[in-house]
């Protein structure tokens, strides 16, 4: 028997993270660093659980990185009904590990340039 569907539309707060989303539109990746203890957070955090401070600054992440690992998504989830994409983890020159979509032929250890497609971080294999 058919159940009554449940349709969940979400309104998500990104207050305090505008810099990140604006950066994405400009091809840049920004994140937060605690002014007090120096901890870098990626994903960015508005608060530092390490020293309990909320005095953070935004820093721009360097664009050179290396592929740590990746996977080619063949069977898509609801919401991503499109062609295959490659999800990767890249370690950049700031020693920050970022999830991204990889473009080009991926291989663990290969160099990538980090950029964006306006909506997400992209690692282009160089």
């Amino acid at each position, binding site marked *: 028997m058919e*159940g*009554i569907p*449940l349709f969940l539309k979400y309104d*998500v707060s*990104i207050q305090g993270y505008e810099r990140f989303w604006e950066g994405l539109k400009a091809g840049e990746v920004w994140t937060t660093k605690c002014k007090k203890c120096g901890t870098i957070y*990626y*994903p960015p955090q508005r608060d530092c659980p390490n020293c309990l401070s909320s005095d953070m600054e935004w820093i721009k992440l360097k664009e050179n990185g290396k592929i*740590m*690992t*990746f*996977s*080619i*998504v*063949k*069977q*898509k*989830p*609801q*919401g*991503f*009904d499109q062609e295959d*994409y490659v*999800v990767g*983890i890249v370690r950049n020159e700031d020693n920050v*590990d*970022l*999830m*991204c*979509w990889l473009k080009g032929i991926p291989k*663990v*250890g290969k160099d990538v340039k980090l950029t964006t497609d306006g*909506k*997400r*971080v992209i690692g282009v294999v160089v």
Partner: protein
Amino acid sequence: MNKRVAVIGIGSSKFGRRNDVGIRELTWEAVREALIDAGLTQKDIQLNVIGSTAYRGTEIYPAPPASEYSGLVGKSPIRVEAACATGSAAAFTAINAVASGMADIVLAIGFDKMTEVDTSASLAIGGRGGNYLWEFHMYGTTFPTYYALYATRHMAVYGTTEEDMALASVKAHKYASLNEKAHLRNKVTVEEVLKSRPISWPIKLLDSSPISDGSSAAIFASEDAVRKLHAEPVWVKGIGYGSDTSSIASRGEWTGLKAAKDAAAMAYSSSHVSPTDVEYATVHDCFTIAEIMAYEDLGFAEKGKGAKLLRDGQTEKDGKVAVNLFGGLKAKGHPLGATGLAMIYEVVKQLREEAGPVQHSFKNYIGLTHNVGGTGHYAYVTVLGR
């Protein structure tokens, strides 16, 4: 812990695509078995802990209907969730409630009906199992994708191959063919695994546990209750837990699960058992790479040598440490909330020497469960012994 805790009753439903039951009837299959196994009725149960992830079924708050159907009204104040380790979280809660003196006889039930939604919705739910905004929202990660990131890295760093991973699938299906409660009872070959449809490369369909419905239950009791009931106990010798970052990228390393290593260390130390003492283990093989990592995280194999242990047949019945002689999550099935308690069910059966065709030969009767939640977000390791 302050008090010894024993398992005195176990039950498990048949796992599979159970279009013949709703969540209430499915739960009852395991509860009924556990009550009969322990020789108890619902009146004897003082507290009932329910484990279910619940997102893939109409009963989004499934504890009250499952409790009502099973005659456990009044005793069921709590549901727990730890993604794919939900069943172990229920066991953990039940064990603590006995050890604290809150109750003498506690039932833990785990179940999920995962097939009420379609696969695309199921993947969207699993993909939200990490950090919604910073993973699924931007990158469309699926649950297989997360484990695939571990597989790719393990292959690159330690030379593990797709063939190695396939061996875990072959082994799982072989034992599941002997298990009447298993979801997938067909045998498979390495070649079939390698040729199966890629889901999130390098993970293929036959590297993956199926989407299953199922339930499991275990009854935990204090030493006093064991004595009064003249029960045949299997003792909880130790339990350990761990947890990790929501964002998989934040973990800094993708060849093993820190949560599982932490859980193992805590379980070994609290039980005074070492990896070489373990004779039988159920490990969390939701994907084939997970079994190989489990060997390493549990200390059965050196780092990077998990695949070798598998290739050498040391985790087969009567091997150095037998693993998943019930068919594993890969082939018995992995109804998330049920899995951790299904592991306890399988270890207890082995320790009681009631495992029939897959009975392992024990010397010291030491068994272990290794149950991972999410992609290493949670882990529980439980040491059991007679």
